[in-house]
């Protein structure tokens, strides 16, 4: 039974790392702008598409070693999707800032439809095979089976999260972000260019989303234009679970949601003697979310924000 538990734990960590990375994008944007960026799931979807385009382009041009090709394509996907995020904020959200919180949110919903349809029209609606970046070799470990792809995802996910934490807490640009999410008015009075902090957040968030998308596609071997919708909703849940606006909260929420899903599937039928099937996994996951919110409305690591602060931020 311990082997079984350990095996499931590995699955939970791999999927949790992906959820966590996407949840970071939701939470950072919300932290700075109090905006739920519904287009975020589409950045996740764009990642593998842009990667594939760049990678096959590089290989087509003669290319370098395959490892270098894919490294260049990964970094370039981060930058391209990040810049797209910045542009979308600049042209679709910023002009609407003065019109309350509903207008930018609707604009985000619209952007989500635009991006998804654009990919569907240009590339086609059918799921496309995505070749694994790291060859998927199963390894026997501690009585369970781990694939190299799962280990790669976990490593890359944790690395990106640690990198982001260091960046936000240890650099000058990180201070901008933290200051802007505390209070726009005060930070601009202290000489921080709030719009730059916003652009920065809209560069990093979508970039991380794209990374998660590439990991996800190479984990499951496919990509499709609608892949961002379901997983985006899950990651949004993870962000709320951990406390939206809190960066460590998003990471915790991602891993927690992954664990709830995996252990729900693995142990619900056993614990209920077969009465509750594996299909109740999502019911279980969302019931946990509701419970957490009932007892801790700000999420697990979320700061309790009074209504006045929220209003003050909006009216800056």
């Amino acid at each position: 039974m311990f082997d079984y538990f350990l095996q499931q734990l590995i699955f939970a960590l791999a999927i949790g790392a992906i959820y966590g990375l996407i949840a970071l994008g939701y939470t950072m944007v919300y932290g700075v702008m109090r905006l739920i960026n519904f287009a975020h799931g589409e950045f996740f979807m764009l990642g593998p598409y842009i990667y594939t385009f760049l990678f096959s382009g590089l290989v087509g041009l003669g290319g370098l070693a395959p490892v270098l090709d894919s490294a260049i394509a990964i970094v370039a996907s981060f930058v391209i999707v990040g810049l797209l995020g910045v542009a979308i904020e600049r042209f679709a959200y910023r002009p609407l800032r003065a019109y309350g919180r509903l207008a930018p949110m609707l604009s985000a919903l619209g952007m989500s439809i635009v991006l998804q349809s654009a990919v569907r029209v240009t590339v086609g609606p059918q799921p496309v095979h995505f070749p694994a970046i790291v060859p998927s070799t199963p390894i026997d470990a501690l009585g369970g089976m781990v694939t190299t792809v799962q280990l790669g995802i976990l490593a890359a996910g944790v690395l990106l999260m640690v990198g982001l934490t260091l960046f936000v807490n240890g650099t000058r640009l990180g201070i901008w972000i933290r200051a802007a999410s505390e209070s726009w008015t005060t930070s601009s009075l202290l000489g921080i260019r709030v719009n730059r902090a916003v652009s920065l957040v809209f560069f990093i968030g979508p970039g991380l989303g794209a990374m998660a998308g590439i990991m996800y596609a190479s984990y499951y071997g496919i990509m499709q234009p609608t892949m961002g919708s379901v997983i985006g909703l899950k990651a949004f849940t993870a962000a709320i679970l951990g406390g939206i606006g809190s960066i460590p909260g998003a990471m915790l929420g991602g891993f927690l949601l992954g664990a709830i899903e995996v252990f729900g599937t693995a142990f619900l039928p056993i614990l209920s003697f077969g009465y509750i099937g594996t299909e109740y996994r999502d019911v279980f996951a969302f019931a946990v979310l509701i419970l957490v919110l009932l007892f801790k409305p700000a999420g697990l690591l979320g700061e309790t924000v009074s209504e006045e602060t929220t209003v003050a931020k909006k009216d800056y």
Partner: protein
Amino acid sequence: MNRTRILLTAAALLFASGAMPVLADDIVLGGSAPMSGAQAEFGQSQIDGAQLYFDQLNEKDGIKGNKVVFRPLDDRADPRQGTLVAQQFCDDSAVIGVIGHMNSGVTMPALDIYSECGMPQVVPATNPELMRMGFKTVVRPVANDFVQGALPAKYVTEKLGLKNAVLVHDKTVFGQGIAGVFKDNFEAGGGKVSGTYGTNPEDVDFSALIASIKLENPDVVYMGAGMPQLALFLKQMREQGLKAQFIGPDIGFTVDFITQVGAASAEGALMTFQLPPYDSSPELKDFSDRHQARFGRAPGPYASLGFANAQVMAAAVEKAESLDRAGVLAQLHGVTVDTLLGPVAFDENGENTTAPMYLYVVKDGKFELIKQ
């Protein structure tokens, strides 16, 4: 000079009217399947197959000297769009028969509309329930899911001697239904089903589920689900080293299945399909060549079914005493046709009495027919 001009004008007018899409005497038949969206490959192939047969008829002077006009509409595999299409065909009094729809979930709500306006309908969808709802306007030449679930169950218990199965389904009408049929037949063949697991239709991660299936140590895994879930499941199953025989239904019968799983992991997987391969008989080979010549591409998965359905519809129109819906409907249930896919005759429910089913195995990255 003047007379020549008048004559020329008259000739031009005649020519123009001849090129107009529908003349009073033309026989208009509707067809509907998903021609866009994720299932477009399957839907378009049916439409192409039917078009090919009607073209052939028209070359030989049509039906009783009347040209056949085939009018395909896209239902996007969406039940709401399907009912709109049905209404559109019903409202157009020129349409005297419809071949459609491809999906059971789309066909079910549309049946009511077609039956209301007395529209003769040849159905390519496979859910057994469709023919037991009491509608008198429909026939189905293709085998239903009772046959599709029974064939692989018989094969693995009798030929391969495998007796311990686990069922996975996606909780849809199709997936759960066909897994249930497999279960009944597998148990009747002396097998034991040690577990049934439900998933959600949109799931992509089955790793936790597969780890718990491994505890049952099955030698057969039957999965009633759609694409890409079938491919994802098998891929993850092999990654975890679960070596059981994998069986899936018709939706997985596409090259995408093999590319998404990876040829090595897909090796040995079994898949049921309603149609024989295109190189299995001289008629089908000939069909394939003509398809290539007409559309410039090899026939898609359901092209021969579309062709055979068109043959059934045309036979009913041929026998009809009057060229309207009532005339065709009166003949629909009684037709016996020797189609591209074999003889077709209908029982009192409108089901084909001899509908065949085929079992394929993935071998060297290709689907290969298993001779029964």
